């Protein structure tokens, strides 16, 4: 079998600070094929955005230590020269950011910014690039693109801006598209439209898509694979169906329990995860999740002393937990699942 299109191997991104070493990403491994979607899920500070910026090579070498391997279409990126990685950025891999208002330059027209993105990698005249920009705006569903192309970002609505941002990211037909919280800053009504749009365009371009989000609901319908991050590490990863139907990590259970669902009666309370995400500078000993974990006592003290390994649970499903696999499956089937389904 050929190597996967994107392969990330033991990626570590550390930031030395005056207070100590911040291990934002600590040994992440995953792969992704063309046409497939990976959802990276986690709370703020779990290292998911740092991962995406790391793949694009956007970390400053002066304050970030990046190690491990990133293979994009059989080209290694971590040790490649900055100039080589720059040429790939925007061309082969592109990114969509969370807040399109602050992510677009306020002093340039939307068209100018798309044209700029296109002309960095294509030696064409401004006229040709402008035509391309209008075409891209049309493709992402912006009405009257030949007029809106000369508008400034602040003249667009939030949803339109995110569409323009997508048009900019897709202007060079990237094979890898990373969307960092693409819908978080948008109205709920617009969120679904943007997600649909990204899905359609992904099908059309057959690109690999990474969606980064704190909201499992966002990736529920789009993702083929899901990677749940906590404290800079993957704590559970595998096919989306498995993660939703047979999750084995207590943190993933918590995420599912705290997801509002329309098919549940209003009276049903959400089940939030107690506590708050750990500080990356001072991670809890042992399993980073143990202070918030209801099943920690069942690990016989292992949870507080030893970092659990990411172990195979069958079918590409990996879990980082001290509880025995049989015990995890029992808890899910007997305790968690019935609670989640209660009221249906």
């Amino acid at each position: 079998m050929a190597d996967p299109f994107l392969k990330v191997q033991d990626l570590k991104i550390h930031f030395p600070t005056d207070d100590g070493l911040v291990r934002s990403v600590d040994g992440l491994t995953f792969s992704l094929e063309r046409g497939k979607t990976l959802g990276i899920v986690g709370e703020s500070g779990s290292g998911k955005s740092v991962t995406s910026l790391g793949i694009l090579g956007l970390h400053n070498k002066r304050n970030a230590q990046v190690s491990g391997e990133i293979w994009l279409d059989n080209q290694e990126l971590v040790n490649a020269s900055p100039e080589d990685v720059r040429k790939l950025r925007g061309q082969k891999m592109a990114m969509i950011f969370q807040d399109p208002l602050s992510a677009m330059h306020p002093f340039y027209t939307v068209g100018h910014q798309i044209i700029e993105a296109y002309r960095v990698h294509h030696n064409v005249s401004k006229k040709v690039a402008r035509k391309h920009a209008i075409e891209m705006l049309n493709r992402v569903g912006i009405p009257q693109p030949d007029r809106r192309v000369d508008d400034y970002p602040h003249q667009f609505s939030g949803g339109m801006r995110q569409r323009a941002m997508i048009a900019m990211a897709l202007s060079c037909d990237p094979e890898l598209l990373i969307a960092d919280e693409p819908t978080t800053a948008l109205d709920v009504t617009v969120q679904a439209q943007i997600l649909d749009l990204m899905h359609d365009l992904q099908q059309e371009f057959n690109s690999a898509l990474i969606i980064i989000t704190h909201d499992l609901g966002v990736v529920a319908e789009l993702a083929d694979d899901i990677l749940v991050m906590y404290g800079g590490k993957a704590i559970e990863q595998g096919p989306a169906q498995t993660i939703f139907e047979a999750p084995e990590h207590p943190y993933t259970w918590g995420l599912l329990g705290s997801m509002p669902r329309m098919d549940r009666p209003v009276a049903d309370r959400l089940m939030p995860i107690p506590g708050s995400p750990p500080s990356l500078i001072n991670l809890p000993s042992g399993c980073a999740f143990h202070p918030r974990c209801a099943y920690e006592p069942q690990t016989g003290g292992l949870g507080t002393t030893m970092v659990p390994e990411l172990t195979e649970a069958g079918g590409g499903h990996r879990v980082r937990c001290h509880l025995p696999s049989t015990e995890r499956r029992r808890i899910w089937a007997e305790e968690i699942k019935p609670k989640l389904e209660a009221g249906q």
Partner: protein
Amino acid sequence: MTYIIRRTIGALLMLIVVSMMTFAIFFLVPRWAGGSAENLAARYVGRSAGAEEIAAAAERLGFNDPIWLQYWDWIKGVFVGSTYDLGTGPEACPAPCFGYSFISRSPVWPELVDRMPVTFSLALGAAVLWLISGVAVGVLSALKRGSIFDRAAMSIALAGVSLPIFFTGLMSLVIFSYQLDITAPGGAYTPIEDNPLEWAYNLLLPWITLAFLFSASYARLTRAGMLETMSEDYVRTARAKGLPNSAVITRHGLRASLTPIVTIFGLDVGLLLGGAVLTETTFSLPGLGKFSIDAIARNDLPQIMGVVMLTAFFVVAANLIVDLLYAVVDPRVRLS
């Protein structure tokens, strides 16, 4: 378009207010302080004049008219010209008439016009120097934050802001003109149309001295602005697009920090066009600044008023240009 009209009307109103204030300071405040029309007139005829002579001069110069009429006559002179009579026959003062100096026995305006090229050459030349050097140093400092270059540049900038012109000017004259003999010794001005090389040679040291003072604050301003904009999301987006570093820094980072620089630049240049008093005095350049110092020393009221009005005009005009430039620099201004 309405933005431009609104700003222009505002600038004109501002000029009218400034002219009223100037007039009030020189003609109304002395009255409030107890001075009579005769006290005022005495300045125009000299101390040795007799009381009757002074009273007659006060009448002829209109100092006994109501204050608003005096103001009106003064403003009218600016647009249509005027004549002054001090008993020795009428003296013509063609428009734009900013008063008539009885000490130098000539209208004020032509004298101002005479001095303008000197000040313009000095101010504009220095402005180009300090804008380029200040912004360049500021950008480099921000990009190499915490480096030896950054620390050294910011220390020098601090010195530049705190050292007065008459110190740096005289020091550089001593070193570069008198010891090393590579720059002009000051005191000379050659019009650019006569000999551009000599023009630049004579102005080189004043330019550098003046630019040093200003570039220091521009470097600090640019550095602060760049540190802020380079961490903005849109700069990250520019990088994510694969733009080369130089384009990210200039087109995205620097472009966004230009607004405050444009503002300060306009005001600084406007103020300097009315006379770089300290620099012109230090280097004995016959510009508007030297002119106003001399006028103050001679207590030549019409000349002082002329310079004040001219400076006010330059500042207001510079302000207007800055306002209009805002709309060019920041498209968000055009709508709001």
